[in-house]
């Protein structure tokens, strides 16, 4: 990718800053090494631990206004998806092109219902896909990481098949993942991010904790003002 351009007098901008920064008596404040230490839960989890984390995730997620399903096998997965299609009266859904979703053969499940499922990319050109994406009633994504303590999905769009649009535009969001994706909280996320990306982060990473909300009118909590109003987490057993 071509480098961008800097506008404005860089030299002057920074020399003002450098001139004004003074070293206080005792020296400048040192960098905080390991800033997360002791603030967040920090552990390696076993399969058993992650089953407990699932309970915690579900508790947080439902408190936030989401719905969660605990799923043992493919039959239950199909049931859950059909229930959501029914509940939301879905006609059109789109999903990420993700190897894990591919394994679940969602198209098969949808073929049995009133709703259609399109996989990203919907079209090649902006002017074509934007209209299609805007008409979608649900988006299905794979949650690469999920944080139990806050009920948060972590969605790095690390390949072109996993665009933010799918979880941004539709009023219903369905996130699928297994218990293997569950971590306690930020410590687990940062560890995985360091391993996977270093400082070369994906174009977008979204942390989603529940449905879109606002309290801008009279401080009354209202759900779904811009983002998803209905959010579902489908958590499969990792076995």
């Amino acid at each position: 990718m071509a480098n961008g351009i800097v506008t404005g007098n860089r030299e002057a901008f920074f020399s003002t800053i450098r001139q004004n920064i003074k070293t206080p008596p005792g020296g400048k404040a040192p960098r905080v090494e390991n800033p997360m230490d002791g603030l967040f839960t920090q552990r390696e989890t076993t399969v058993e631990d992650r089953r407990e984390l699932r309970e915690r995730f579900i508790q947080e997620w439902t408190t936030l206004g989401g719905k969660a399903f605990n799923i043992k096998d493919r039959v239950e997965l199909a049931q859950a998806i059909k229930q959501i299609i029914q509940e939301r009266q879905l006609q059109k859904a789109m999903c990420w092109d993700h190897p894990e979703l591919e394994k679940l053969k969602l198209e098969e499940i949808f073929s049995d219902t009133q709703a259609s499922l399109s996989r990203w990319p919907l079209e090649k050109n902006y002017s074509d896909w934007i209209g299609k994406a805007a008409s979608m009633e649900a988006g299905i994504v794979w949650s690469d990481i999920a944080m139990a303590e806050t009920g948060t999905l972590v969605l790095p769009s690390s390949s072109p098949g996993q665009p933010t649009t799918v979880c941004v535009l539709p009023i219903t969001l369905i996130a699928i993942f297994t218990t293997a994706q569950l971590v306690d909280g930020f410590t687990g996320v940062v560890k995985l991010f360091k391993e996977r990306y270093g400082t070369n982060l994906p174009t977008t990473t979204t942390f989603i904790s529940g449905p879109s909300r606002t309290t801008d009118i009279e401080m009354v909590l209202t759900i779904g003002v811009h983002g998803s109003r209905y959010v579902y987490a489908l958590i499969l057993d990792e076995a």
Partner: protein
Amino acid sequence: MHIEPSFHKRYHKALRDTAMLKAVKNGTGRLRGQRATAIEGVGADRWMEFRNRAEAIRLHVIQHLDQYLEQLVDNVIKNGGHVCLAKTGEEAVQYIAELAKKKNAKTILKSKSMVSEEIHLNPALEQQGCNVIESDLGEWIIQLAGETPSHIIAPAMHKNRFQVADLFNAVSEEKVSTEIADLCGFARKYLREKFLGIDIGITGCNFALADSGAITLCTNEGNARIISTLAPTLVTIMGMERILPGLEELTVMLSLLARSATGQKLTVYNTLSTGVRNPEELDGPQEFHLVIVDNGRSKQLGTKYEKILNCIRCGSCLNACPVYRNIGGHAYGWVYPGPIGAVLSPLYQGMDKYGELAYATTLCGACTFACPVKIPLHDMLYALRNDKVELEKTGGLVEDMTYKGWSAAFASMSRYRFSIGMARRFQFPLVKAEKIAYGPPPISDWLKHRDMPALPKKFFHEIWREMKNDGKE
């Protein structure tokens, strides 16, 4: 909206607006309660640890601001984004206005950016024919009302549902009811159409990460990420202090920000974006511009007010402040209200214009206690008062003599007793209902805004002495 130049007039106007005051009391009360519950959940000790850590992180960043900003700039351009280094608000506005012209932009959607309010970006873009739309619900409401935000995180806190319905009905073809759910539903529908026709998106910046060049956007509504996903050209405006070394520091700040602002464990949507999309990607911006704004910030470095740059704009100090809770945000006059505004406005905009705000405090310290990054706000307000006095030496001869006389009278016990005796004797024509109601200047000025109790016939210590003497007899 016309803004009175004098703080005195502004707060008097606010005190008459009972609907606004009620809404602000209700809003701040709720936010305070939610924050308290969230802290309880974390535990007081761990919360303190969080604050200590956050303070240390911010202190380090600000004292090494040049290094981190240089790193950020290098990474953003490496990621394919452009950077504008704006020393003044005008430079930032000019850059964005030129970009809008170059792109022939008609529809510009914004997510909340206090810096853009600070530099008066919207009017400049509107002047050249752009349709600029605020997409945060609260910001949109006040945009329709032609007002400025009254709270950092709840900009339309002062409006009730009936006022909002009137504003919406002015732009809606169909009648919108006063039900809050309907009002939000209308906003979703109306703004969704605008999102789909977006030419340029403009966002604020909660935190930039130096080591990756990523920008973090935090919204509960999801408007910022719709913009950063759909806008072909994305502009992010950041105050130059809104920077962190990397992801680890960010996790600490996000945990504090949400809890301090609204009592949530995390904001619903935290989006990290490195700007320009990869060639194979279909969504995300094709062009990204990061506008880094100084506009008075670098002047605070190395001064006793340096720590004000640690602020993460959570709004917690507003909710804690008894003055803010009783006058609302508009009385502060500039874009930042409450204790943080009372410090920032005079520092960024000048003592002559906003120096009076140093008195918009009871110096109770509630703001300092509420601040997640431990900015000593009330100490700064006190220091600003001193600066103001120093700067103006306002009183001139009369005030000078009054204070000199005062200090002479109080320095010795006999002179003190004598003065009190005289004052008691001569106060009677000025007293009404046990208060001093009249007086010559400068006392008359002082009495306009404050009650001064009349001197009692006897002080407590005099009664005490008499009682003790009685006992002896």
